[in-house]
């Protein structure tokens, strides 16, 4: 048996630091919103001429008076991602850009993807993204409240917040782009983290009923160990699947799979080191569970 409980305090401290740092990052550095949430235009361009590179493209685009233009390589040497604000929301901007690029590069390039999100739509998408995440957290709270005693709910929700905040913190730290698929990833992380926590909690509760003489500090450790094999296998297979998406699923899914990988790692960690320590700190005992059982019987 591994003594996970030996490090409860250490990891609680670490998590607190992580959360504080993430929050500071989110407040002061903020998130790097993509055009989905900020509005603007994105062009994925494939070149068939080595003359076309990041600097020549940047030169061209900067001459077109489009506001802030960012040009990056996208996956390999021939693919580029160009983003700009398109502040005036010009109508025929894509045609103009094409005509302009034709002059310098001829026919040696191709627009593979064009996205243009107006300011109204991006504001709405951001709003619905925030609503979706809040709603999912609220639903999880309600669900866990129905299924478990309040101490457990608190533990699960704290773990959930930890995972979401730290994942977003990493995105802020490395200025990784937040787009619609990241919202999907965060929601899935919420589901996964909850899933992981619930499995251990289920066992804790079962053991609480079984043993009256073991303190919660020990009991959580027993439960973690009993479910450890499952925790390892499930997170391993999930991570294997996600790594396959990250490395082979193409550039478009990179951000999404990275967020999910982070989420799974944090989710597994927080089920052990946040959710359980809340139970310990709240001195959950057999009485906690039995009281609830009695109430359920009465009802």
């Amino acid at each position, binding site marked *: 048996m591994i003594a996970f409980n030996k490090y409860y305090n250490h990891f609680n401290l670490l998590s607190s630091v992580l959360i504080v740092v993430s929050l500071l990052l989110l407040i002061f550095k903020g998130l790097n919103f993509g055009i989905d949430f900020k509005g603007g235009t994105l062009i994925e361009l494939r070149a068939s001429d080595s003359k076309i590179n990041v600097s020549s493209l940047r030169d061209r685009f900067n001459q077109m008076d489009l506001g802030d233009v960012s040009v990056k390589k996208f996956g390999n040497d021939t693919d580029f991602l160009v983003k700009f604000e398109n502040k005036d929301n010009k109508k025929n901007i894509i045609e103009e850009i094409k005509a302009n690029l034709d002059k310098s590069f001829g026919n040696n390039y191709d627009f593979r993807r064009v996205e243009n999100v107006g300011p109204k739509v991006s504001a709405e998408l951001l709003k619905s993204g925030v609503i979706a995440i809040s709603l999912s957290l609220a639903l999880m709270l309600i*669900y866990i409240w129905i299924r478990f005693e309040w101490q457990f709910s608190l533990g699960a929700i704290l773990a959930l917040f930890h995972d979401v905040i730290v994942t977003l913190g990493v995105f802020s730290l490395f200025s990784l782009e937040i787009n619609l698929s990241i919202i999907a990833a965060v929601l899935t992380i919420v*589901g996964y983290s909850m899933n992981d926590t619930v499995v251990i909690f289920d066992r804790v509760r*079962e053991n609480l009923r079984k043993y009256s003489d073991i303190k919660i500090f020990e009991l959580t450790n027993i439960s973690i160990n009993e479910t450890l094999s499952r925790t390892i296998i499930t997170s*391993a297979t999930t991570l294997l699947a996600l790594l396959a998406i990250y*490395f082979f699923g193409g550039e478009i899914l990179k951000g999404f799979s990275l967020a999910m990988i982070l989420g799974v790692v944090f989710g597994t960690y927080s089920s052990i080191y946040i959710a359980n320590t809340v139970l310990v700190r709240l001195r959950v005992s057999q009485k906690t569970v039995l009281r609830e059982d009695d109430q359920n019987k009465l009802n």
Partner: protein
Amino acid sequence: MLYFSKLRILFITLFSVLFILIASSNLFKFDDNFFDKKINLGLDLQGGSYLLLEIDNEPVIEQKLQNLTTTIRNYFKEKNIKINNIKIDNQNIFFNVTDNDKQSVLDVFQDENSDLNPYYPRFKSHQLEIEDTGLNLKVNFSRQGLIKLKNSSQDQAIEIVRRRVDEVGTNEPNILKRGNNRILVELPGLDDPMRIKSLLGKTANLTFRFVTNDENDRFGVEKLKFENGLEEATVSKRIIISGENLLDAQPKMDTQTNQTIVSFSLDRVGAKRFGKATSTGIGKQLAIVLDGKIISAPVVRDTIASGSGQISGGFTFQTATDLALLLRSGALPAPLEIIEERTVGPDLGQDSINAGMIALAIGFMLVIIFMFVKYKIFGLITNVTLIVNLFILLGVLTLFEATLTLPGIAGIILTVGMAVDANVLIFERIKEELKDETNNILAFDGGYTKSRTAILDANITTLLAAIILFFMGSGPVKGFAVTLGVGIFTTLFSVYFIARLFTSIYVSRNKNKEKLI
């Protein structure tokens, strides 16, 4: 628990085979009459264009209010009620009444059977609201009135958009209402949406009006620019004929001048009016105005009674074709703005499919190898379940003709990764039971019953996330929610029916084996 009746085994086998067949119908072509369902590919996979259009209702409201002032003026004139100083300001109509007439005016607006101000019993609301501000009254659209107006302009606009898109002839366009002032246009397989974008960007309001220099024209005059933006002309506001009078419009080559023109034919009313105007207006210039710009202003040389004519204006064949198309499909009730556009080229779509499939294959292999190494015989059972699960998942998606997107493929891969969870929970539990239980069959039973709540909890939480995503997400992300959500159900089915069947067979054959797992 251990026992599976023959009937049940048969059912599970048939069900699995059925879904494997359905899923494989995406790969092999079956007879279409027999089974023609297929998983749809999202725009991000097959390539195409997604356009979200917003109707700008301001001009419609302005126009309606303009018409209303006339209606109101005439209505009260007939009733011998004096109203004066009627004017429009900031989407409100203001007019003055005398003290004596005020109550009767208010009554007219609040009468439920009023033909001036229609009443909607269902919403308990009039079309117009009147506000009593002394002797100056303020009239504007009520909330319901505005909603009705927006709905009707959306209905008209979607019809016109559909006609224009159909005329261009893309395959299987998808045109839907969004809210009460937006229209979603999905154009699969369309590589370059520029033509459609420019066609949808035009209101196509066509009028024929005389050029005049008479400042005292009864209908008023306005200065309009020519299409080239250089010249200007003063045009009467009197409309001879408008786009509504057109029966047909086609691009043609004028054999005499060798110019591309648009020839049109008029309906009966239009032909009559056109004939009359051309007979009285010989020698005058007739301006052909499209969306506030003069295309051309030819001099009338003869009476045109045939009800057909032609527009010339230095067109190329393409611009003539587009103008004819716009005229045939009719004018939009209000200008449209493209507020969101997402276009994916077909080769990027194909690349995404390839990458997705490779990731799926590799992810699948990794999980299968891992499970076999870790679990041996039970790993094998899990793997068989996983494969059947994948087929059932694809089968369900096919059956509902769901739309598969790139994030949707990610959802399938993720399902593969997470689907082992339930089996692992069960097998781990059986292992634990075996520590105190020497009877393999009882341990097997215990493993299944005792793991049930954890499995249920775990899947419900993921399902909740998927449901929220489905309702809040858009486009590609919705595809992810679908595969993730459906994946939960197929996983539960394959774990509790298929995996359990195999496990029970294995356990009953090894009742007395020392080390079961």
